[in-house]
């Protein structure tokens, strides 16, 4: 699937996120303090909490359900928690945000593995 225009950057609050509803489930599009934009499945690797609803700080988001901290670039929990959620490509052109849905299967690494894993 190619690039989809999802709307303009200013419609996403700084240090916040908006949801893009897709056939393969909700995708959260985040905007950081310095206008970095990232997209992840709106599913926390812990118990599927809606990451789009979390508090965003530098390049991370704290899940609203149990406070796991997910790295926006990789979509992975920051240590010692373990687990990743699927990430999608995004770009900003002329103030518009474009999303390229990943075709990778969205099986997530769930918690339970030890930090060593």
């Amino acid at each position, binding site marked *: 699937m190619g690039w*989809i225009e*999802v*709307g303009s950057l200013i*419609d*996403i*609050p*700084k*240090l*916040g996120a*908006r*949801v*893009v*509803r*897709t*056939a393969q489930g*909700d995708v959260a*599009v985040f905007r*950081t*303090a310095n206008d970095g934009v990232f997209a992840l499945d709106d599913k926390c690797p812990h*118990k*599927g*909490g*809606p990451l789009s*609803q*979390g*508090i*965003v*700080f*530098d390049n991370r988001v*704290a899940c*609203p*359900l*149990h*406070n796991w*901290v997910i790295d926006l670039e990789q979509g992975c929990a920051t240590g*010692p928690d373990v687990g990743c959620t699927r990430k999608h490509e995004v770009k900003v052109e002329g103030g518009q945000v474009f999303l390229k*849905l990943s075709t990778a299967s969205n099986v997530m690494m769930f918690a339970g593995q030890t*930090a060593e894993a």
Partner: protein
Amino acid sequence: MKERLVLIGNGMAGVRTLEEMLKLAPDAYDITVFGAEPYGNYNRILLSPVLAGEKTIGEIMLNDDAWYAEHGITLHKGKKITQLDRIKRLVIADDGTSAPYDRVLLATGSNPFVIPVPGNDLPGVITFRDIYDVDRMLEASTQYQHAVVIGGGLLGLEAANGLKQRGMSVTVVHLTNSLMERQLDVVAGALLKKSLEERGLHFLMATSTEAIVGDARVKGVRFKGGLEVAADLVVMAVGIRPNTDLAKASGLHCERGVVVSDTMQTFDPRIYAVGECVQHRGTAYGLVAPLFEQAKVCANHLAQLGYARYEGSMTSTKLKVTGIDLFSAGDFTGDDSTEDIVLKDAARGVYKKIVIKDNKIAGAVMYGDTGDGAWYFQLMRDGTDVSDFREHLLFGQHHLGDAGHGQSNRVAAMADGAEICGCNGVCKSEIVNAIVGKKLFTLEEVRAHTKASSSCGSCTGLVEQLLALTLGGDYSQAPKKKSMCGCTEHTHDEVRAGIRANNLKTMRAVRDFFEWKNPDGCASCRPALNFYLLSTWPGEYQDDAQSRFINERAHANIQKDGTYSVIPRIWGGETNPAELRAIADVAEKYNVPTVKITGGQRIDLLGVKKEDLPKMWGDLSKAGFVSGHAYGKALRTVKTCVGKTWCRFGTQDSTTMGIKLEQMSWGSWTPHKFKMAVSGCPRNCAEATIKDFGVVAVDSGWELHVGGNGGVKVRATDLLCKVETMDEVLEYCAAFMQVYREEGRYLERTAPYLERVGLTYVKQRVVDDAAGRKLLAARFMESQKLAQIDPWKQHAEATDKHEFIPIKQVV
């Protein structure tokens, strides 16, 4: 080229400093480590359990070779630095190995003191400091019978116990007539001696050693007065001396230890020092907890952040002899300016003594039941005024305010499978394994790795006990000042005071002023800052939605499946057919899966889709409802009973009182949630005495109660005062809420707030000082003018519902 950092002394304080520094500045230095011992860094504290056969050397290793390699650290094991050349900036080891440096970290620990008596150098005479010593003792225990331990202090007794476990017959010789006199008073000392004797140890009290006899190997020990006992092994445990040899030789200023400043720098700014070898503000420490505090500070400066200060530590002691529970902190003897509170139960073998000076805890000694040690220690550190709960003090924290799922019994006794953390279902063995397996030292680390005590926190005390139990020593203590979060070293109170004093009116301003490490802050400090700014500058400060937890941002409670719950306000819990009909209609229109009566006398509509929220709110506010703030750190419910209007026992119109209270205070933001209730008589059907502000009607007026809550740890309220009119109730309530809003720490509910500042203080502010009360109430009403805007109505009318709808649907 990177700066070169050389660590001299591969021990607990030195390596801990490296670990802390690597967290802050992973590749600031080329690091070289010299250690006189032929091992990686190990947990010296646990040598006692190793000697006693409860642990193996393998289990107490902290950093193996792999760790050093992984961090690109050059490790020289078994090489002792003999020369520190500060002109050439070079260190040289006994085998000639040398390394140039830009900075040096000196962590040479201390040397056991060997008493100057004839024969003290005979084979078989040793000290108790490192793995080498333990090996010697184990060797001896297999070949010989009689051991004499000189010194009845912490170390001596742990050595004696270990050797006894290994099958030797052990005699402990002590100079004074009370064991561990530096940590224990005479009573506790006697209890300790008794139970050690029951374990088969022999004691020679008030005895001083004259000579150690023997030729090829030690044969015995002779004491002043001529008494002589046979010995094939003599352990000297009479104390330690900071190891300053190298520092002295290199001309660094030393007194008892290497003298350092509050930044852990020696008189040579290139040379830092931490651990037992240093002397800070005249004190040299011999326990790890303070050394780890030093490590944190030193790391902060090595990483060139340069703001941390070490201001000295209070220490507490535990003895690591399995089955013996003993705790001691501060000044436990006292003088004529202090008072003692003492509990002694010889049958149970329990002894507790708390020394009080000016209504604060000055010290404590406990024997047999040390469960509350951590708590007393914290009260002591914080200098909390204990006069308000003095009579409960000895019975421990969980007796403060009643039952509940709070602190429970001693962990030592618990089965491995026993659940410690009920929120995250973590059991005792999981925590212990994590502590041992992952080498955890602090409460924070245990929280991070096991999740235990990371949710409601009611098991924190237990986890702290487990840490102490597993590691010995006193790791579990909270740092002297609890910083707000990882982003800053400053405490809630400091930041808050700073906001007012320096006119800081935006998040950015606060974070810049206090030099936050993390420009955006984090998920735990941002909501707190938002509240402090909001409550300090009502009207001026622009609330920051992105710094609020989703529940407060969406004005509804997020559920585990990502849907929301909606709880409209039902004033004082009194409703009518029209309201109920309206709620019913809304529930049907948006086919709400669950409608439930809450524990707070209102109705919860659960399972609502986020995008439906604004429309639903629109309909609800048309029907006259406002948000119930069931999601907020804000005024929640005001429960009432029917009161005099109907009830045959009712003394006042409790329902109307409740409605008035709710109408005055709804919409206000508070440090934590705030709940009220009004009962029409002392039968108290509205449970007013477990609320943050509870009103109980009596014939002659209204009793006002504060600082109660149900929940995690039930706490009944304290009686604030009695007033006569409804208007007074309102004024006192507003005043109390305002002090709490101005002084309560974010997420500190009224119960812990009250226990921190003391009921006496709150009475003085809200009851005794009438003028002050009026001012407080006025400030509250002022900020209410701006707060009482229904967020639901706002969002329903708002043209942009961004927060609530997807930005795009892709089909």
